[in-house]
């Protein structure tokens, strides 16, 4: 198992390093990730979404739907814990949290 894990890790790692070769320079303000979609957020945040905090405007407005999904994830996790750890009403010997 250990050997197998090590092998997996090495292969994955090599793959990731290989892919990183074509990454843009770190911190380059004109890297593709920063010029295509995100400038709109910076420029429009106050006029379109009404807040100077760009992250807030993206979280709550531009990509608000993701955030709804995110809250749902939390809700799911909560319900999951209730589902899994709920005390059995007549269960015996089941110590629970």
């Amino acid at each position: 198992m250990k050997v197998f894990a090590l092998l997996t890790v090495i292969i994955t790692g090599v793959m990731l390093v290989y892919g990183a070769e074509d990454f843009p320079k770190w911190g380059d303000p004109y890297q593709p990730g920063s010029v295509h979609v995100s400038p709109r957020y910076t420029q429009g945040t106050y006029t379109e979404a009404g807040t100077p905090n760009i992250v807030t405007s993206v979280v709550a407005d531009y990509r608000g739907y993701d955030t709804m999904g995110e809250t749902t994830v939390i809700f799911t996790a909560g319900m999951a814990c209730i589902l899994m750890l709920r005390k059995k009403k007549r269960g015996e010997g089941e110590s629970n949290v």
Partner: protein
Amino acid sequence: MTYEHFAVLIVIVPLMSAFVVALLGWFKRWACYPLTLAALFVSFICSLGILNTVISKGTIHYHLGGWEPPWGIEYVVDYLNGFMLVMLSFIALVVAIYSKKSIEQEIPERLVPYYSIFLLLVTGLIGITVTGDLFNVFVFLEIASLAAYALIAVGEDGAPMAAFNYVIMGTIGACFYYLGIGYVYIVTGSLNMADLSQILPNLYHNKAVLVGFALFTVGIAVKMGLFPLHVWLPDSYTYAPSVTSAVIAPMFTKVMAYLMVRIFFTLFNPHFSIDLIPITQILTWVAAGGIIAGSILAIAQTDLKRMLAYSSIANIGYIVLGIGLANRMGLTGSLLHILNHAFMKGTLFLVAGGIMYKMGMRDITQFRGLHKKMPFTMAAFTIAALSMIGIPPTGGFFSKFYLVLGAIDARQWAFIVVLLTSSLLNAVYFFRIIENAYLEPPVTAYATDGGTHEEIKRDELPLSMLIPTLILAAGVVLLGIFNERIIAFIIRFAVPASF
């Protein structure tokens, strides 16, 4: 009201109902079941509306919050996910109808959160299917996964351990997937699938894109249980509560298969996935290995649900094989198999659940005389089993037929042999059960004089479980008979035009 709103309603209705079920269930437990049904029914109606709109007006684009893509999140429904949506919501509805008695028997004290999570699972799966945004896929993928972990963990004895393995493997899969998004994002700057499909062709030789693609593929392969990354699957399906198996087996892996098609042929174009990198070829061989290994392992099992789980692995092999063949016939077969397999595996797991419900066991060597006890259930089982083997006119035959056609088109003789051999292997493990259930004279356990043959009383499932089983079984046959209609009206347009 325009029909476009259906695209978002189909997700929101079960989502909101999940909250309502959790709250209301605290006071009125009986309300959970009808509420769940109502929500899923609305979802189903919406999916029909969506498919109808897609057929009559073309692809639906729905901009959430009014932000146009690529800045906002967009829902895109075309033929491909249109038919997936109908399938998902229909099977969810049918399984939900079935669920009442089974859950009341297996986990009565956890009924309220169970239904809530059940709805969340459906929400997640539908969300993955409708969205046109890579990261949104990840969010809904996590909703569905977390729901699935929990639904599995509340099963019988081995379930928590199975669920934990699933968590680890599932998280690896999901992490690979969103690491893949990162690798693509860093060189493109976009998350919208349609936008990316415009940008990516210029970057096809970029190493980050190549690795991103590989990460997507591996991540999704883990999530759908493609051999040899299937290790989490058999235990999970086996120990989960019957209803959970019946909803996860037909739906979760199919949605992942859909995602794979989406990424291979929409996000990246077929030219990239087929010609530039040999990923489809590798996939076909992996899938062929999965078909054979899954079938052989299935033969080795005596536990019905575990056997079905291995058979699922083989069938995922079929679907991926069709994707990997990367021609019109192969992909048609693959998409058709997604549909057919969802119906037949659904039927089989519902039957397995029914047998658990009535007999409390699922060891296939003890199935003697089951046809007398539960004639209709076994009839449904037989139909689904014949479909798995590939006997016309059931659906399974036609998807296999298209896959064989695809293999012939690709001149891949080895895969034809694999496909044909596997249907014989399927015959071995399904006829073993049919034989047991229909033929061997039932020997009653409490007979004192060494097994007298006692007349077995008919003891059929309650109607709320029997009818959904029979509906799915009928679906298996109808899908077969009307497969050409489905292909002509829907799947034909779901296959990329360049094929």
